């Protein structure tokens, strides 16, 4: 699969997929999308990246272990639930803030952070599995 065409195109594909995955994740509350599907797209992009440039390159680009990304996702999701304790509401009561940015209003909410947590977990877990598998098949080659 290590063809020149694929290797040249891969960064483009990967970049597009990553940006798209974030877009899909963030729009999820009102349109089709969400953290889970966004994470899947991002993980798929990592798999593509790994096929094109080798796992070592992906790991270098990621800087941190993908499983650590997944772990931070669980922590983020859990922490977003804890935020409600500060307004003396039960665990995971959602809090919404509407930030006025002049031209537009940006809604920021705990479910959004929760969804980002889901994104990170799915992204981290699946890419670490995919990378580990690719690593193995590289070892065979």
């Amino acid at each position, binding site marked *: 699969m290590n063809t020149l065409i694929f290797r040249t195109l891969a960064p483009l594909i990967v970049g597009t997929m990553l940006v798209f995955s974030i877009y*899909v994740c963030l729009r*999820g*509350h*009102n*349109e*089709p*999308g*969400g*953290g*889970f*599907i966004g994470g*899947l*797209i991002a*993980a*798929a992009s990592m*798999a593509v990246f790994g096929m094109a440039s080798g796992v070592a390159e992906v790991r270098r680009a990621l800087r941190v272990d993908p*499983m650590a990304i*997944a*772990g931070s*996702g*669980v922590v983020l*999701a*859990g922490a977003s*639930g804890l935020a409600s304790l500060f307004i003396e509401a*039960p*665990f*995971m009561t*959602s809090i*919404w803030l509407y930030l006025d940015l002049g031209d537009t209003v940006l*809604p920021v*909410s705990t*479910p959004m952070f*929760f*969804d980002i*947590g*889901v994104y990170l*977990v*799915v992204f*981290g*877990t*699946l890419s*670490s*599995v*995919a990378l*580990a*598998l*690719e690593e*193995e*098949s590289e*070892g*065979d080659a």
Partner: protein
Amino acid sequence: MALPSLDASIALVALFPFLAAALAPLLHRLTGPFSGWILALVPAAIFAFLLSLLPRIAAGETLRLAIGWVPAYGLELSFFVDGLSLVFALTISGIGAMIVLYSGAYLAGHPHLGRFFGFILAFMGAMLGLVLADNMVALFTFWELTSITSFLLIGFDHQRMAARRAATQALVITNIGGMALLVGAIVLQQAGGSWELSVLRAGGGLQEHGLYGLILALFVLAAFTKSAQFPLHFWLPNAMEAPTPVSAFLHSATMVQAGVYLLARMTPILGDTLVWMALLVSFGGFTLIWGSIGALRQTDLKQMLAQTTLASLGLLVLLIGLGSPVAITAVMVYFVAHALYKAALFMAVGAVDHEAGTREITALGGLADKMPVTFIAAALAVLSMLGLPLTVGFFAKEEMYLGLLSGDWVSVSTLVVLVAGNAMLGGIGLLVMIKPFLGETVPTPKTAHEAPIAMLAGPLLLGAAGIVAGLLPDWLGHDILAPGATAILGDAVVPHLSLAINLASPLLWLSALTWVLSILVFRLAVPMRTVLRRAEHAIGWTADSVFDAVMFGLIRLSGAVTRALHHGQLEFYLILVFSAFALALFGPMLVLGGFDWLQPKAELGDWTTLISMPDLRLYEWGIVVLAVIGLVAVLVAPSRLGAILALGVQGAAVALIFLLFGAPDLAFTQLMVEVLSVAVLTLVMTKLRLDIRDHRPFEDWGRDGLIAILCGAGVSLMLMLVLNGTLDTRLSDLFTATSVPIAHGANIVNVILVDYRGFDTLGEISVVMGAGIAILALLRRRKGVRP
């Protein structure tokens, strides 16, 4: 009752040490050798605060604080301060301050000293929480926290096998008790109607309740595991693998006293019955004798002290079992006396070990010249341990004998056990005081010199406290014993300690007898040790080896079960999983009459006229055909890779169908799952180095096909059945109606995932990550095995 500011500070007493524990490693890094002095301020401040409460508690007041915890279940995080909890908390924090200070010097230069401070402060917080908690769930939580933190402390030298084993053993044994406590608390709540111990106490005991036996058994089991009563005692001597400051803390005033505290706390609710008395007195008495004989067997100073701790715990349990006002007063005074002298002795022994390089009693002698302050501290502690007049130990002994002068056979035999136990304890005390310090100088591995001041302050202060308290019987009686004993019994107890020595009193003569016997034990220690060691060899097994056998058996059993269930053949796993799936689909349909629903009704007449082609557009038909082609291709594909790709085609077609029929979210996810599964399956297949073709024998082909058809048909029938019935739309109506107004999201699927059922999702993502870690572990393992 009390002012709000005061209330909050009671909660802080239990929670502040945890905060300090979190900061301890950082603080240690910043302040280096002074960290022990600084961190000792935390328990010292708590001690000072608790001391300021003493006059009010002694005046008969009690303080209670409740914070909403899980309001939905009526649970409160509540704390309660009365005489009993205050005396325990004072002892814990007071000795804790000395221990933290001592640890700083004892472990000076240890690479993990900061971590150690964190553990020991967290442990102290758990212990304070345990004695101050009023809510039984909180009590259980703190109880388990003491188990976990003590596990970390005992296993602090985690590179040594013995330390790891001792830590695990302590955790296993005390957790059995923890589970018993949890179940006991739940049953007690059901029987007594409250989680709050103070409410339960006020409501009178449960001695007449039908569940009394069960509750008693569970609470006694919990207390006996924690307080190391025979035959669950063996973890305590093994826990001596911990660094000495840990032993000094755990086995004087904390950890092991939690069981004693629990029994004392439960006395008004469960006590004063024949079973209670029989259980506690017999097990306590036996442990007393067992521990004191065990101490005689040892030559390691720390082990000797550990065994005497067993004996003292037995003694306390026995006294609680007796339950008379005098016995309960004795519990309080003995608890204080024991905590002071035992902590001081452990620290003194640690100082000897630290400076002389050994703690074998046979290899030590004449250290008093080189370590005079340590000697004085040890001697002060032993005077109290012996119970000489003018020490707090004297009152302890007087009180415990006082209740047993009635002359019936139970009193007399208990008295004999007590005198014998005290005599042996006294003998051990003399050994610890005299043998290493006096007599001829014996060369030691290190050239002994006096310990640093941080290591002397604790033993000296605590040893002296045992004497000072003994000189102030009125204060001790009025401020410490009476409130404590009153809290245990529920009735007012009048203190009657006095310095006056009455020569006509039988108590004095019993004490004198104890001292004489102590000296006898001291003189005969060496031959007794030889005899006991021989006896131990003759028996050949101990409770410790039984524990090992049980643990080994458990591992073997779980290994056997795992091998039976996980035989490692993928084929069988799949057959099992899918057969079970088919069964789960068809079973309920058969049993609940689902097929009757699916049958066309008789009045339909010519049903063929009712079947019509669904009204689909051309491209929709195209997609359906694509799915079918994909499916057929899976079956006829010549190579595995082709089949995987065909499966992907079929899945993508299904995703398109979802998209066309108004489930874009589902379609999206389905598509991504298909892409990823094709990629992963391809990778796995190249990895497994299977044949390119999938040729299986005909009978396998038939079997797999049958299972596949059953599963497919089952799912289809189930879907038809679901569509046939009336759909309960209450939930989806609610979601549709409220999604935008209260959850601010138009995509209901997403809103359900991240908001309405967010807690489920949190669990699911944790499972996803856990599964990912397991997969990585499996892959790495394979890599390791490969040459």
